[in-house]
């Protein structure tokens, strides 16, 4: 796999190769999250998109500077609403605890929820309007805490874990395929909220220019030690040029290229740390008594229950853990891109593609998850060039203006779906356990 990426580096450019590598690392983290749920415990979670988006939201809320004006304009109303929501939750909890189950209780709770939504809307309305009116072209939202973005990786995990707790409480009792549908729909609700609540993170207007944990290219290009480093690396190439002016121009060019490679390398380093840390933790967990218990629950719920294991509690726990890992990946993704675009969260890309990675790589095997993340993302990116090559090969006999050939070349981007689908179907049919199947050695 690494060899393939290095080949891209040699034939296309190191820049492309490194960006593929970084995305592979992020995909690997997401896949590990899904693998913890599916491979360890057999829980099917089609809501990965929602958790990734929450991770991204965390990145925004942590790193952006607070918008003081907006806070003054509508901060009080929003805090008021938050307070109301907490009161509503406590009221419902109180009723659930203290009254026996009856129709009356159900209707009472429904009435509280409906009344609560109406009251919250009435309280929030002026605040939201005031906030969104504050300089709508650049801000129009509350902003964040102005902390280094790297913290958001942890906060994103907590956000996702919080959502997973609620979803798990609601939906984990369902049978497998219903759980899939329910989680998919809940994640759509989450995306809808992030998209349309502009006061929170500007909604579809996107947040751009997030702070970076690594240096900026422009600053690098002006730093002494970096220019020296580039010169040192390319000294043999530079020595061939005798003219001083030409030499300087060539060096400048190299510095510009080198700076973006260097930035991407910094990201790779950060992401690698996360992947390796997660790999160690998940491997340890897999072989621990806890991992053994999870497999027992996965393979035979009733038997595990009869042995005194609390299936419901363990399911909830692992659902939260897996979702938190996906949340980390979501925050990493936004950190790398430097922008948060709620409109780009689509189930195809953030749920089903990740599931293809899990199934292809091998469920229940962490190395399989990483391999799946790398292989599938690599194919996803390189599918278009491969398809173009194949089309040209098969239509070599046709004229360049032939309608069919032109049409096929225009639709090259969609061949990636075809490849993913065929790959998934073939793997499911001939290697249902994935490329690296689950392998448990009892030591």
């Amino acid at each position, binding site marked *: 796999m690494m060899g393939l990426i290095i080949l891209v580096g040699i034939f296309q450019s190191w820049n492309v190769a490194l960006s593929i590598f970084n995305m592979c690392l992020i995909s690997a983290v997401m896949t590990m999250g899904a693998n913890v749920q599916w491979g360890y415990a057999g829980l099917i979670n089609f809501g990965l998109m929602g958790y990734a988006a929450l991770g991204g939201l965390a990145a925004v809320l942590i790193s952006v500077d607070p918008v003081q004006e907006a806070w003054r304009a509508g901060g009080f109303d929003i805090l008021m609403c938050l307070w109301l929501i907490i009161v509503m939750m406590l009221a419902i909890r109180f009723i659930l605890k203290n009254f026996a189950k009856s129709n009356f209780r159900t209707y009472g709770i429904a009435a509280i929820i409906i009344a609560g939504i109406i009251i919250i809307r009435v309280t929030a309305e002026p605040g939201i309007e005031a906030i969104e009116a504050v300089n709508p072209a650049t801000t129009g939202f509350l902003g964040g805490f102005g902390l280094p973005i790297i913290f958001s990786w942890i906060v994103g995990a907590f956000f996702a874990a919080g959502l997973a707790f609620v979803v798990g409480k609601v939906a984990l009792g369902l049978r497998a395929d219903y759980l*899939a549908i329910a989680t998919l729909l809940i994640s759509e609700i989450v995306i809808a909220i992030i998209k349309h609540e502009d006061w929170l993170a500007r909604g579809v207007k996107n947040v751009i220019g997030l702070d970076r944990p690594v240096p900026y290219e422009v600053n690098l290009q002006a730093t002494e030690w970096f220019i020296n480093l580039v010169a040192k690396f390319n000294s043999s190439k530079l020595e061939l040029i005798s003219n001083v002016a030409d030499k300087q121009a060539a060096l400048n060019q190299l510095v510009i290229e080198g700076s973006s490679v260097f930035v991407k390398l910094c990201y790779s380093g950060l992401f690698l740390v996360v992947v390796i840390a997660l790999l160690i933790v998940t491997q340890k967990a897999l072989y621990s008594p806890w991992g053994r218990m999870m497999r027992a629950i996965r393979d035979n719920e009733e038997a595990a229950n009869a042995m005194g294991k609390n299936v419901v509690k363990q399911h909830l726990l692992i659902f939260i853990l897996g979702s938190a890992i996906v949340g980390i990946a979501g925050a990493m993704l936004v950190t790398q891109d430097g922008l948060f675009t709620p409109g780009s969260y689509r189930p195809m890309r953030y749920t089903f593609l990740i599931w293809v990675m899990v199934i292809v790589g091998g469920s229940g095997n962490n190395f399989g998850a990483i391999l799946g993340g790398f292989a599938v993302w690599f194919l996803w990116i390189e599918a278009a060039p491969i398809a173009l090559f194949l089309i040209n090969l098969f239509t070599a006999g046709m004229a360049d203006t032939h309608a069919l050939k032109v049409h096929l070349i225009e639709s090259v981007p969609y061949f990636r779906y075809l490849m993913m689908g065929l790959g998934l179907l073939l793997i499911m049919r001939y290697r249902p356990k994935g490329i690296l199947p689950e392998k448990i050695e009892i030591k």
Partner: protein
Amino acid sequence: MDLLNAIILLLNYIFVPALTYGSQLALGAIFVTLIYGILRFANFATGDMMAFGTMVTILITWYFQSIGISLGVLPTALLAIPFAIIFMIGYMLFVDKFVFRYYRVNKSPPVQLAMVSIGVMFVTQAVVRIIIGPSDRRFFDGEKFIIKAGEFKEMTGLNEGLAIKSSQVITIFVTLILVSILFWFLNKTKTGKSMRAYSDNEDLALLSGIDPKRVVMITWIIAGILATIGGAMYGLDKSFKPFTYFNNMLPIFAAAIVGGIGNPFGAFLGGYVIAFSEIFITYAYKKFFMYILPESMEPESLVQLLSTDYKFAVSFSILVIVLLYRPNGIFKGKVL
């Protein structure tokens, strides 16, 4: 007079659109529920199969238009649908033979079949986009309106107009006819009864001599008919765009589960439940209250429960509530 105006307003903006949208969802929901009841898996390729059927309809419509065949006031697509259905049935049987049959014979768990259907979803989506492209297409021709808003106002002398598009009437009519035939088939014919028996208890059905291959084949044939007509109706009424069809899968699932999955009648009503609640909750009632309340009490805000951005969220929330309180749906489907 004001009361009449208010009623027309609701008819125009809520009732007619919701009935149309509900019919489109209902066809998809019956498709999902049949596959679930008889083949026992959640078919994630639903939306894309519908897109595929619509695509074939559009291609045949274009062909007819190019050789000059048309139905006059009716859209040409109606003529193309039967041919598209034949093609779609072939496609469904092809997919079943080469993909789903293997897992059915091996008695794989439903989750695995659902995963396989995701593979089918990817491939179908790719094929649709490669053949017809991802852009928005309208293929409606013929007379667009049955009653135009302006004409209606002149006719009745009311302030509010009522516009009825012919695509809406066609959708509702076709749905009613198709669904009645389907229920007649399922309840009265021998084949339909054997299908229901198979869905109820596979082993018992096999014991009483029902041929499973035949049941499965007929299920896919009905699925092909429903997918093509449901998709084409949606495309006629709104427009054809592969991405929207993929997204429609979600409210369709919601409709099928709300109605009680595995229960075709429930799915039929579930479609309307979802459509009506989506539109009821996101409609701004300001004008309605302006008509029925005296002037002094007129509301200042839009009187909208939720903004239209949350249209999908409404149906999903209903689904979550139903799953929590009545896991087998409003009309008793299979127990989860």
